[in-house]
């Protein structure tokens, strides 16, 4: 296909991606160098019959003029990245100086909002992903062994947790684990502790969020593995059996090697999706005990009275850097594959 035809075909697609993905990244990078204007304050004297008091108020007109003049805000360089709600260099070095051991250092580090969010995001990503892979694998083995008749309904019900909007899925679970909901009330009854709620401590909240994550994504790895199991070479299985391999050895040496490429695929997709965890935190109203990098950005833009564009942009840039680090091994591998194919 000549270059001209190629570009004629791909142009609309390329155009929207440049306009709405590539340019916004540049915009984010630029915004992260700015910070909100200082409040323009004026002194107002308020008098009552007994005395006069001087009071500082926000000067709305001056603020509007300032915003008109410099809509991006005040230039701050890399200051936003290093301030206390992001990388917090000063606080980190102080904690480093004051903590007796590495563990104490790490535990006080997670009191800082950015590091706390990063800890949750990484924990969520690297705990949920393997659990999803393992759970899905066992469901696939189980379903593969049951009679064909019930496979259809099983796949139908399995797809539901995954297809449903993450926010709705988390709300459905949230209402059940509420202390008045069926699961929450049952747990209180089982542990005979009427104070028990799953939102009480960070550990419990983290556990609930991760259980949600596994529930939501296990169907994906199940479906992929189940499709893979249909392609396991039957002759190899049979000859392994004639050679005296036990049931477990057949799984270990024939089935699992066949499924390894699928595992890489699932892991890649899950790493990408789990790293952006946001909706469950909103759905479970878990922000007090758990926040993720995405949630920090959402919070800066949405919850605050005036959106903190600079702060959100700095967190966004740091998140994008995180994604690129996460993807680097995959990108290197793809690059090698590509070179091997073309040369």
């Amino acid at each position, binding site marked *: *296909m000549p*270059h001209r*035809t190629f570009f004629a*075909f*791909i142009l609309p*697609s390329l155009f*929207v991606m440049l306009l*709405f*993905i590539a340019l916004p*990244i*540049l*915009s984010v990078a630029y*915004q992260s160098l700015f910070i909100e204007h200082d409040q323009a304050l004026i002194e107002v004297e308020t008098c009552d019959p007994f005395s006069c008091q001087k009071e500082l108020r926000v000067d709305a007109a001056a603020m509007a003029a300032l915003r008109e003049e410099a*809509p991006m805000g005040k230039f701050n360089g890399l200051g936003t990245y290093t301030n206390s709600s992001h990388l917090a260099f000063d606080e980190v070095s102080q904690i480093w100086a004051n903590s007796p051991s590495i563990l104490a250092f790490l535990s006080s580090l997670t009191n800082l909002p950015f590091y706390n969010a990063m800890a949750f995001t990484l924990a969520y990503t690297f705990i949920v992903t393997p659990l999803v892979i393992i759970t899905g694998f066992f*469901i696939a*083995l*189980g*379903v593969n*062994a*049951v009679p064909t008749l019930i496979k259809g*309904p*099983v796949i*139908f*019900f*399995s*797809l*539901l947790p995954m*297809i*449903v*909007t*993450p*926010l*709705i899925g988390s*709300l*459905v679970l949230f*209402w*059940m684990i*509420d*202390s008045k909901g*069926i699961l929450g*009330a049952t747990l209180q009854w089982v542990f005979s502790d009427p104070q028990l709620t799953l939102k009480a401590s960070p550990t419990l909240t983290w556990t609930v969020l991760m259980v949600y994550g596994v529930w939501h994504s296990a169907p994906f790895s199940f479906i*992929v593995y189940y499709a893979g199991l249909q392609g396991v070479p*039957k002759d190899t299985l049979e000859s*392994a059996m004639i050679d005296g391999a036990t*049931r477990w050895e*057949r799984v270990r040496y024939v089935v699992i090697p066949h499924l390894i*490429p699928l595992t*890489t695929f699932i892991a890649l*997709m899950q790493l990408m999706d789990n790293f952006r965890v946001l909706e469950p935190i909103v759905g479970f109203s878990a922000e007090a005990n758990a926040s993720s*990098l*995405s949630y920090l950005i*959402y919070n800066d*833009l949405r919850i605050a009275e005036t959106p903190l*564009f600079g702060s*959100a*942009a700095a967190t*966004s840039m740091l998140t*994008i850097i995180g994604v*690129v680090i996460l993807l680097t091994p995959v*990108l290197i591998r793809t690059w090698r594959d590509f070179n091997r194919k073309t040369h």
Partner: protein
Amino acid sequence: MTNRAERQPLPLMVLCMGFVLIWVITAAFPFLWTFWGSFKVEADFFSYSNWMNAITGPRTLQQTGATWTGNGYEGAWIEQKFWVAVINTAIVTVSVVVISLTIGTLGGYALARSGFRYTFWILIAALVFRAMPHVTLVSGYLLPFFQLNIWGYLPTSILVLVAINQPFTLWMLHSFFLSIPKDLDESAMVDGCTRFQAFRLVIIPVMWPGVVTTALFSFLLAYNDFTVTSMLLTQENQTMVPKIASFLGTVQAENKVMYAVAAVVSAMGPLFVLVLFFQRQIVSGLTAGAVKG
């Protein structure tokens, strides 16, 4: 029929059945519970004393005179104007699917039929874009959109969703197009078709399964999106998911949490129908990327 290597001893069979049963209950029970409970009053659905109340509904009988009530639905759809959000969702999802498939099929076809080095770079860029959390991009839209005065309108969100959807659409359609032999469109061109005619008259008719599958996933992306629609739309233009998120706070304060439950069940409906009718396409779409390893 089944060969010896696949035969199971009875205990293992029972173990498998049990495990599958537990999984199916885990997957399906929350939805059935919420669906059933949406027809009850709050005192029954969130019953501290006895969970059986949510099933039999004694308080519902007391308060409304029947064990089933549509109050939640009435409140959500009429009082809270959920129907507006439903219409907006319909507009957004249909437009996103149509636009992203129109430009996606063209792009995916070009990527599959061209062996140049830059196709590789476009695919890699698409992979990186796919991995980016959407919320990081959203913060880049807000300021420019405010200044251009295009923030808060449905068309803006539709375009953004199309763009966010493009990397995935390109990858998926590109791999579907690769599975169609090159000879097909080349022979059409020998017969006098232009490249575009060959694409439209010869390739698209055999591509329908791939297009339908990709359409399903575009639909799901647009329908399920929370980050883009919750931040780029005004209160009046909201689609279902941000609407539910936004009225969670308001109805919870007024003790009308059943409105939210009813809205959630309403939003689940179309997804159930989708799975019911397109199960095969969804499964093939999920595994499409995987089979090549």
